[in-house]
Each structure stands twice: as C-alpha cells, then as structure tokens.
C-alpha cells in the first residue's frame, strides 16, 4: 500500500475495520507518521463516544462474578517485557513441512515488523501470538509451495542469504545464516525491488538473529518485484532505504 493510501486508513483503524494484515501494515506506518498517530488518537476517542452512547445496566451478578474472579487473576507487571515474536515461534517448535530448507530454519523462525503501537492493549500478547502463528503458517506455505524458486547468495562477512519466491502465493521468504546482529539502535530492513524502486518488506530485529539460521516471511505481496534487498536502518525502519545495502538479490526466474 502506498503511503498516501495509508494516510487514509485512520478511520478504518480506529473502528477496527481493517484486516489483520492491513492493521499490521498501518501500525508500522503509525510509528513513522506523527499526523496519523495524532488523528488515530482523536478518532479512537471519537469511536469510544459511540460506545458510551449504548450504555446499559448490567446485572448485579456480573459484578459479583468479576469481583470474585479478580481475586485469583494475576495482574500484568507495570513494565511489561515485550515477548519477542521470534521466541514465541521457537517455543511453538513448528516444523516446516517437506521443503528442503525446512530443516535448517526450523530451529529459528523469525518475523519482521514488530508493531510497537499495538503493544499498548492488554489483549496484544495474545494477538501477537496469533499473528506469529498466522505468519508462521504463511511462511511454511511459501517454503512448501510447489512453485517455490530458490536463489542463494553471499552476504558480507561469510553470511549467506537465500530467497524463496512463490509467484503462485505472491509471497517471498528470506532465509539467512551467519548474519551478525545489527548495530545497536538499528535494524535490518527487507525490501522488494520493483524495477529499481525499493518497497518496504518488513524488519528483522536483533533478537531474531540469534541461532544458526533464520527465516522471515517478507511482508506484502511479491507482485511484479524482480528482486529484493537488505539494508541497515534506524529502529522502526524507513520508508526508503537510507542505509548501506548488505545485499541485493535478483529473484529466480521461472
């Protein structure tokens, strides 16, 4: 989605009317777009007024139940250490089916695009887990796609990268081994190469890079992209590459 299009999603976002994928994409946009973040705060408060207007009187029994339940419900600590999506995925120990690369990536599956904005809501840990799960399944489905094509290239310092593209699923995955952690305050950002124009395709943070290998589902559709790139960007990522390219790889042709 273009940045201009993303700016128009504030209302749909405040009304929870976006799909999970669009929601995630918009939340990444919110980290970089102060006007949208401000508008979202206002429109969320406006939506809450629609909620206030449908006030009903609850039964006394409901309060009794809730008050009883909180006596045994553990509270979240004030400073919540955000669970890394990668560690959640590792715990799940999800086996990636069949595909020849599966064995090397099963140990460390990582995901880009951690949306900090979303973490404020208490339901988010669960939502994040669900999202990781969905992405994990999607990643597996790309790796296992019958039309998956593979290219491997050398990155700096002995690291290597492999890109898997399924035109049928319109998705790509990036697998790396031996990549060092990015410098502090920086992240690796993936890009689709649309004939020379780089389109953001998600982030890999430092925590994703522990372990012998990692696989990341690239965010967004492949569409007409003919290659991909990786750059080092400030935390949160950039709209356009600003850092040095670690790698530029052409997608395998059919």
């Amino acid at each position, binding site marked *: 989605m273009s940045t201009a299009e993303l700016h128009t999603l504030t209302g*749909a976002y405040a009304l929870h009317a976006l799909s999970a994928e669009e929601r995630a994409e918009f939340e990444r946009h919110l980290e970089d777009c102060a006007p949208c973040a401000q508008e979202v705060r206002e429109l969320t408060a406006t939506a809450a007024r629609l909620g206030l207007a449908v006030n009903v009187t609850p039964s006394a029994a409901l309060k009794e139940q809730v008050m009883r*339940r909180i006596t045994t419900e553990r509270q979240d600590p004030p400073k919540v250490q955000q669970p890394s999506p990668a560690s959640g995925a590792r715990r799940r120990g999800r086996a990636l089916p069949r595909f020849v690369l599966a064995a090397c990536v099963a140990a460390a599956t990582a995901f880009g695009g951690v949306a900090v904005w979303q973490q404020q809501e208490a339901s988010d840990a669960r939502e994040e887990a669900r999202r990781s799960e969905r992405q994990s399944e999607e990643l597996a489905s790309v790796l296992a796609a019958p039309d998956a094509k593979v290219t491997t290239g050398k990155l700096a310092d002995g690291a290597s990268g492999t890109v898997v593209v399924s035109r049928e699923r319109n998705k790509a995955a990036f697998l790396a081994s031996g990549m060092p952690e990015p410098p502090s305050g920086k992240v690796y950002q993936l890009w689709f190469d649309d004939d020379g124009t780089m389109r953001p395709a998600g982030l890999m943070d430092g925590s994703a890079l522990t372990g012998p290998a990692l696989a990341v589902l690239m965010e967004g559709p492949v569409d007409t992209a003919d290659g991909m790139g990786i750059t080092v960007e400030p935390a949160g990522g950039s709209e356009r590459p600003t850092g040095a390219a670690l790698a530029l790889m052409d997608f395998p042709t059919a």
Partner: protein
Amino acid sequence: MNEVVHIGGIAPMPPDLQELLGRVARGDRDAFSHVYDAVCGPVLGLVRAVLRDPAQAEEVAQEVLIEVWRGAARFQPSRGSAMTWVLTLAHRRAVDRVRSAQASSDRERKAALLDRTPAFDEVTEEVESRLEREQVRRCLRTLTELQRQSVTLAYYRGLAYREVAELLAVPLGTVKTRLRDGLIRLRDCLGVGA
C-alpha cells in the same frame, strides 16, 4: 449502577477514572470496584450492540473487565482517556468474537445484514445515559447517509471495511474515506480532543 452522563468536553468520564486505574495497577480491588461501576454499563452496552446475543455479550464483557484488571498497568494516559482505553479494548474484543463466529456462519450473517440495514435507533434501544446518547445521535445526523452507514456498520456491527463496501455496494476506497471523514465530522461535532 452509576449513571455515566457527561456532555461535550474532552473527557466523557468521571474525573478520577485515570487515577483509579493507577491504583488498580497496584492491585487495589476497592479502586477496581469503582472502575467497574464507571465502565461496566458502556462496556456491556457496546459489546451487546456488536454481538447481539445477550449471553455471549455478558461473557465477552466479563473478559474485557478482567482484562482491565490485569492490564491496568499498560494504560497510558498520553494515548487517550481511561474510558477510551477501556472501550477500545471492549470494541476490539467484541469485533474479534464476531469475526471468529463469522467464519462458520458467513452466509447467514450476510443475508441477515442485508435483510436489516442497521439504524442507530435500533442499537440504542436500551440506552440509559440519555444526554450522551442524544448528543451522539444529533452528531450522527450531521453525517452524510453514506458516512453514517459506513461508521455505524463498522462500529456497531463490527464489520470490516471490505464487508461494508460489499454490503453498501460502493468501492473499497470510498468506504475507507467515508469512515475517516465521517469520524472526523463526528469528532468535530462532539468536540473530542486527543
């Protein structure tokens, strides 16, 4: 049940709800009891509007209230009022529930929606806080028909904008824009600050 009736202004809630939440975050059950009294009516009303099934609504409202207890420490005043935080949680939960139920009964649900385009009146049958309701109704009337339908279908029925577009037979881009400019008009009419 305390009536929560506030007109206009930035914070449609008791002035001390934010402070109460701070105490809840430290495990204060007495403070939680006050928070419960302030938010439970709107939470249940909203969840019931979206789910339309009283038993399910009560179940989801209970989950939301427990989540307020558990997650009070995550409330950030800089992001909006305490009531907004709670009702945003409630809406999200209700929408999640509607969408998961939807997978199984997609066709019946669409048929029912088409059969009965929601009117705001229908949603507000059980409203108690008359002043808040009147103000919201008045402001909804300042919207265009398409803005009003888009916003109410998304908010009170928990529809994704794609479903709204399908239901109203208008392009996706139009619905996105109507949701935004409709809410902006409501924001200005209600005098909502950030």
